[in-house]
Structure formats: C-alpha cells, structure tokens
C-alpha cells in the first residue's frame, strides 16, 4: 500500500471516530433555549394555555406580553400558527374556539404589529 493511501486510510478512520464521538458519545447539548425555538406542538400548547388563561382573565395586555415571548414583533402570528396546527390536528372545538377568540381580540387592537391596546 502506498504511503498516500495509508495516510488517507488513517484520516478516514480518524474522521469516523470523530463523528461517532460527537454524534453518539458527546453530542451537542442545548440549554437556555427560547420559547420561540420550541417544536410546533409545544408552541401550540403554550399558545393554547395563553388562550385558556385569557378566557378567564380577559387581560389582553397580559396575553400579548405572553405571546411576545414567541414573536416579539407580531404576537398575533403564533396564535394564527397555533390555530392552523389545531385545525390540522383535530383539536377539540372548544380549544379552537379559544384560539379564534384570542385572534379576534388581538385583531381588534392591531396586535399583529406588536401594538398594545
């Protein structure tokens, strides 16, 4: 075996070992993740909880401040996304109604632009 081939072989062995170590033994560990980075179903659940709380509290400013953690510039957007997710994943009618009610309230105050009433 030529010296070049042997070098390449050792390089590939090292490459495989490095990838195995970084993917399987010591993978990247994420911490301090923002709410906005959550997977869609978790984000939807958060928005659903905000909508449920809003039904009781009727405090739109509070709901907006909670939604801004998902989208600081447009708190309406995550609710619209959650509604879409809920409709495509057969959520209960009551839950869909909560989201629609929150969208309606946010729309009336122009929260799509991040404004507060």
């Amino acid at each position: 075996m030529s010296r070049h081939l042997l070098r390449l072989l050792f390089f590939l062995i090292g490459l495989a070992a490095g990838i195995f170590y970084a993917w399987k033994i010591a993978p990247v560990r994420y911490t301090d993740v923002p709410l906005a980075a959550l997977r869609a179903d978790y984000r939807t659940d958060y928005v659903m909880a905000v909508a449920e709380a809003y039904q009781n509290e009727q405090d739109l400013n509070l709901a907006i401040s909670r939604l801004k953690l998902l989208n600081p510039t447009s708190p309406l957007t995550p609710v619209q996304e959650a509604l879409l997710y809920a409709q495509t994943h057969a959520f209960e009618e009551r839950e869909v109604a909560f989201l629609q009610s929150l969208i309606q309230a946010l729309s009336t105050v122009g929260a799509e632009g991040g404004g507060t009433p």
Partner: protein
Amino acid sequence: MKYRSLDLLLALLLGVGSGLLYAWWIAPPQVTFTPDLLRSSDKEAYYEVIAAAYAANGDLERARARLTLFGEEPSAALAAQAQRMLAAGRPFSQIQPLVRLAADLGRPTPSSPIVATPLSAVTPLSRPPLSPSPTVEVVPSEQDLPPPTAETAPVIPTLSIPTLGSAFTPIPTVGGVFILSNYETRCDPNLPQGLLQVWVNDERGQPLAGVPILLVWDGGQETFYTGLKPEIGNGYADVLLHPDLLYRLQVGGGEPIGNLSPPPCPPESSIRYGSIILTFGRK
C-alpha cells in the same frame, strides 16, 4: 520508520479533528427543543401560563401533563417560583394561581376553582426574603438577644381587638373566618429560635394554600402566605420572630391574635427561645 509513524498519526488526528468539526458545528444531530431545555425566564413564563390556564379550566390532569414536560418535580418548582415572585414584589393575584396549582398537585383531589378574592388590603412583602427559603425574618435591628430569666413567664397569646387599627383591614374571604384552634410552644433545638409556624385549614380540616397572614409589630408589618413550602404542608407558613417584640397576627380576615412572642426555654435547654405553633381552622 519513525517519520512514517508520525505521518500516519497526524493523518489520524486530522481526521478526528475534521470529524468533530463536522459533527459538532456543521451538521449536529437534529434536536427537538422541548420545554425542559428552556431558559429560566421563559420557563417561568410558561409556568405562569400553565397556572393561569389551570385557574381558568380547573383541569388538573392537563396542568400536570404540561408540567411533566419540564422534567422537574412540579409542585416544588411552582412553589419555588412563587417564592421568587413574592420576593420580587409581584402582586399576589399573579402568584396565587401558582400557589394553588402547587397545592392541588400535592393532594389527591383538586380544590375548588379559584374565586377572585379582593386582595387590595394585602400588602406585598416590603423586602425580599434573606434566603431562598420562604422563611421571613422579622428583626428590627442588630442587637444581642437578652437571655431569658427564670422569672420570665411565657406570654400566652390572647384574642384581642387590635389597636393598630389600620393594619388590620378585614380581608374578604370565601367562607367563614379563621379561628385559632390550637396553640403550642416548643423548645426544640432542631428548630430555629423564635420560629412561628402557622397551619391553616378549611372547614373540613384540609390544608389551605395561598392564605395571606398579616404580622404586625411595633414599627412594622409583614405579609406572608401559606402553601409556599408544600414539602411541609399546603396550609403551612412560617416566620421568625424577634424575642424583644410583641406581635399581632391575623390569618385571612379572621380575628387577630395578640401578644405573640418567642417563648423562653428552660435553662437546661440548649436554646434560649423556642418556637410557636398556631393552628387555624375556618368556621
């Protein structure tokens, strides 16, 4: 031969380095970001929303399922957050859902739905607790504790109409008022000296979380709440008393209890002052 070994070792190391670079920075494995990875501020916001949603729908199992995603002991995490909010001077109306959810998670059946109780008369803590523990130390000044004398008779608390009128604004409560049902003193060296322990129960004897307790002394007052130490009890709260002061205490909108002071312990005891245990029930 030596040159060749070094040559191959370098190739191997270069391969390892390239592999690490690729797998850590260029193409890390796809990760699902779950709530347990959230940064602490967002996690606390999520907890607040879960508690507020629970206050709205009363669905304990749903709240429990949501909290499970965080991979923490939910009741303790909620109580700890309630303490931090209390220390930060947040209004109790925002803290109450957390306390109630923490309490309900620790009991077999949920409590009645939260009723909006006017709490305008409840003053928030004037300063944060000195430690992560919710125990609030009420000390007027830095001074040595006087040793108790044999002649010192223990002060028995009495039910009295307060003379510090404005401090005891009646707080509207759901149901009856809280009545002192048991008074006990202990000289237990395992407890902090001057500890006042308060247990608050409802009409059925079940512990009640989130009940404000107003403590007034000459020159100051403090409000603390039951349920912030669920590991001890949902209806439990405590505070440290200074032996030189007399205190009056009011649970919810109940009758104030006056002349409270840490009881002196006998000379053979290893501590100078004992603790007081008060139990209240709603009538």
